[in-house]
């Protein structure tokens, strides 16, 4: 074989080398910060071909020289720092957090209650999303849920605002029951950020004027 024909061998492994550029792990071509911005999931070759047609090489009839693994990656919608760190920590795990809280509440509360859900979070937009997620999580666990919220009088709020959390939540619960905002067959699931420095949520139950933390 003429020597120059060996040049033809050069491009054959080129796709394998080029694939390094797509490697999501940190390394020469990707920094740690960039690597943290993607979530990846390993797939079987068949699933990858079905979900991403044309992007994964078809299986060769005689097999391949190199065993390859399909990995699909997606960038996070919000890079680190684009949202408040605490909001991001809560929102990025909202489904998991509310599912856990709803499971605990549904398991510990008396049966046949109609639930009302409130959330206590510094940002009102995030608070409404927490309440929404908690309602959906309760419904998906077979609970009866209402869109109503307990209403307290302005005088109650003035008093509650001067109380520490350890007293404020039980007192608010007692007032809601006393004013008829919560009936015997109704309970309130309160989802709260107790300490502004933490990045998880807690749940409490208000039933018949009695408040207790369950998570």
């Amino acid at each position, binding site marked *: 074989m003429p020597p*120059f024909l060996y040049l033809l061998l050069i491009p054959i492994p080129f796709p394998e080398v080029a694939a390094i550029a797509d490697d999501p792990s940190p390394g020469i071509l990707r920094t740690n910060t960039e690597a943290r911005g993607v979530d990846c999931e390993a797939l079987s070759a068949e699933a990858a071909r079905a979900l991403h047609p044309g992007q994964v090489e078809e299986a060769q009839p005689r097999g391949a020289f190199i065993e390859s693994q399909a990995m699909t990656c997606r960038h996070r919608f919000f890079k680190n720092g684009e949202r408040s760190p605490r909001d991001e920590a809560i929102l990025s795990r909202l489904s998991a957090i509310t599912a856990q809280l709803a499971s605990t509440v549904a398991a510990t509360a008396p049966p046949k209650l109609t639930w009302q859900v409130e959330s206590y979070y510094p940002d009102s937009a995030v608070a409404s999303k927490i309440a929404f997620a908690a309602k959906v999580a309760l419904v998906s666990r077979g609970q009866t849920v209402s869109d109503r919220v307990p209403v307290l009088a302005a005088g109650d709020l003035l008093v509650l*605002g001067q109380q520490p959390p350890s007293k404020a939540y039980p007192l608010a619960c007692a007032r809601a029951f006393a004013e008829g905002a919560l009936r015997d067959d109704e309970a309130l699931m309160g989802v709260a950020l107790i300490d502004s420095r933490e990045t998880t949520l807690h749940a409490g139950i208000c039933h018949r004027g009695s408040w207790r933390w369950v998570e």
Partner: protein
Amino acid sequence: MGRVRVSRASWLLWGLAALAALAPSRARAAGSPGPVVDEAQAAELEKLRGELGAQVQLQAYDLLDELVFEWTQHPLFGVETPVILADVTVPVSLGTGLKALVENHFAALVVNHRQTRLVLTHCPECSAYVVRSGAKGTVVARGYDSPEVLSAAASASGSRHAIFLDFEAEGTSLVLRARVTRLTPELPIVFATSLSSATSGPPLLRSEEALVSAAAARKEHLEALENRGLLTVPIHVGVRNYATSPSASVAASPYVWLQGGVEVAFTQARVWAASFSIGYTWLPEVHDGWMAQARISRLLTGRARSLTLPDLYFFFGASVTSVQGADSTLFDKEVVDSASILAAARGTLPRATFGAFHLGLELRVKNRIGVSAFLEALPTLGDAPALGSFVDLGFVKFQGFGAEASFCF
């Protein structure tokens, strides 16, 4: 005057007060200004929000499609039921008009799919802040937080149910939560669900006129791609130029070739492809000729042809070329002498037939249009005195250089 009652905001305000008491003091010096966002930064921020909104939009549409498709298969109500789209919320910190897009898409889906048995009605009071005074007090709240306001809206519109949609970005997934509330004083939630865009699946971009299942949409996509066929007919318009040695007495004219043939890909990924073509060249009063060429191409950029980006191929090929004309003496193995000049004068055009190898790179867009450049080696003409070389690697000389534009049918 009755007591002032504040609905949803009441407990929230109380919670805020508790949190404020717990919050650690910030390390900001008294009187120091906060971060200043100038106009350029604000513009960049808005641009970034727009880009994020565009990414989220397709996935939000996909989730809405799935939600409404599910309702077409399992309607929420037994008969056509008026409903209010009470509220749509988008991921926190996105304020790019995404909400309006989502509302419009949802409305289009519901209008186009009567199988859902939903009839959308208008509800401007739902998202507005309203003040409502009654015997028990005065309520200041968003419409959808106030049972009295929703009941009034329901009475005005004839609706008895309200739909709430919420989108939130959780890491790399977009989550759609939906709930349907009956607009009675008790406001019971009659339906709630949560849908998440999987990391592993791209948006399916289903038509909003006639929704199909996710599996059917993916199948349609695959069929559309796989029906591309493995056989294409490329037409090449190219030019080949040959180097002349410094001592040559012949000026080499560029050879303009028109070639046509067939190209076969071995798989749908089009990693390897082979082609065969024949070509013709003609330059008035100078030369004409024909060529037969075979070529093998190898994809360099990735393991499969891209559906959206140009692909770079390496190719290697061989050809047989026969040309006749005044400048074909360039390929003579002997020095041009007076006899050949006299032969040309008598009308006998010199002819040259030779084989060649070529290798090069081709940039092809969506397997339709391509441009390529290549070097050509003429191993049988290594001793042609008039022929020079563009690249001489010692063991191989590339005497020719060419470029082509390709159109594939």
